[in-house]
């Protein structure tokens, strides 16, 4: 099967799964923004998704994409490490135009994976999972307010978003290049598009995080003072 046996096939799978996950992030980030605009609206979205069949199908699909993306990442990394040979260069320096993120995608991936685990424990386990188990899910907005106000959650989330930004800035254009959607004119353009999409996604997540951290801490202090 060329999707597993050939180098371009493996990268093709990496691109498709990565691009789908990026699209999901775009959707997720947009959904989060609603939490700032309207708390009721956000809770409506939580209810709408909940443990309905389409949300479950979506979750399973996402889990499948994530698992394939991660497994392929390990397989590719092992093959690439071996291809480098036993002896390593004593002196090596990064050439111009080589992004730092492109050389550290696996490390960034580990940070993102750790963030996903934390995030699933924080939110998914208390919302969709309990609903699947037949219990009453937590109130979405209240959960956000509580979680993001704690500094020990705020800081890991912040680091997670930074890693995500670096991962996406390389990942998006790299996926397009791997799918063959690039040429001399479009290469700088897809790099620019990649930066824009990554920034939009991360900024949307970040706004919600910072908003509820500030609201949870500063406002509480001000209210107490009054």
């Amino acid at each position, binding site marked *: 099967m*060329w999707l597993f*046996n*050939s*180098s*371009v*096939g*493996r*990268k*093709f799978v990496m691109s498709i799964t990565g691009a789908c996950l990026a699209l999901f992030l775009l959707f997720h980030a947009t959904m989060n923004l609603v939490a700032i605009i309207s708390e009721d609206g956000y809770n409506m979205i939580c209810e709408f998704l909940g443990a309905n069949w389409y949300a479950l199908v979506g979750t399973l699909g996402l889990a499948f994409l994530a698992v394939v993306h991660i497994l392929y990442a390990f397989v*590719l990394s092992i*093959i*690439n490490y*071996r*291809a*480098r*040979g*036993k*002896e*390593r*260069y*004593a*002196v*090596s*320096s*990064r*050439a*111009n*135009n*080589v*992004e730092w993120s*492109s*050389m550290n*995608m696996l490390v960034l991936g580990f940070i993102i994976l750790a963030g996903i685990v934390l995030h699933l424990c924080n939110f998914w386990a208390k919302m969709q999972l309990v609903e699947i188990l037949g219990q009453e899910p937590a109130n979405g907005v209240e959960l956000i307010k509580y979680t993001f106000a704690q500094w020990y959650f705020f800081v890991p989330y912040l680091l997670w978003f930074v890693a995500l930004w670096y991962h996406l800035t*390389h990942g998006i*254009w*790299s996926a397009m*290049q*791997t*799918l*063959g*959607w*690039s*040429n*001399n004119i*479009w*290469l700088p353009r897809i790099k620019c598009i990649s930066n824009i999409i990554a920034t939009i996604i991360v900024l949307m997540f970040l706004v919600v995080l910072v908003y509820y951290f500030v609201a949870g801490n500063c406002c509480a202090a001000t209210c107490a003072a009054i």
Partner: protein
Amino acid sequence: MDKTINITLKVWRQAGPKAKGHFETYKLNNISTDSSFLEMLDVLNEQLISEKKEPVVFDHDCREGICGMCSLYINGHPHGPDSAVTTCQLHMRRFHDGETITVEPWRSNAFPVIKDLMVDRRAYDKIMQAGGFVSVNTGGVPDANAIPISKKNADEAMDNASCIGCGACAAACKNGSAMLFVAAKVSQLALLPQGKVEAASRVKAMLGKMDELGFGNCTNTGACAAECPKCVPLSAIARLNREFICAKFKD
């Protein structure tokens, strides 16, 4: 005009493919800044021979940047710190007086060291034999302008054809991937009508051979294109991906 420098060389010495290698340090005095890097190595070897020591083995041939024989990973860069030149075109004026210069062979699983700085690059020849050609029935010579080719395609094919197969791309790649080489060879033919006929079978055969020989997977890091002495662009790899994926979907 006649400026000279004193340098310290750290050179990789390895007696054979299976032997354990190590760095050897040599001091060279009064090296003319006008001399090329390979001429400097010639001076080193003269010195070693006069001291009754084994000279350093390194690949070289035309010494004018067109044959692709010279290699050398100098101070962390294939073909040295200069851009768009081969090692034979690198001059000592790029280095300072008193500098320590580290010289290593290409390091890639598919390019085993033969001796010292010389590596076995026959893997590239095998990739070419797998499909890097156009099958022609030799007969009467066709008229030169019988097949019209746009200037844009002709130029791009020429840019890709400038690849000399030196191996700097695989040497620079953190994944030991030969994608830029294969991309250049696939591109130069896929862009021209004569090469298009066999494009699908060629890309499958050449890429299959590349994978078989133990080269890595491309992660679009771009070190290959940045270090390529002939400036083969990264977009060639996109064309290779496109050709390969389309060929596979047609199957």
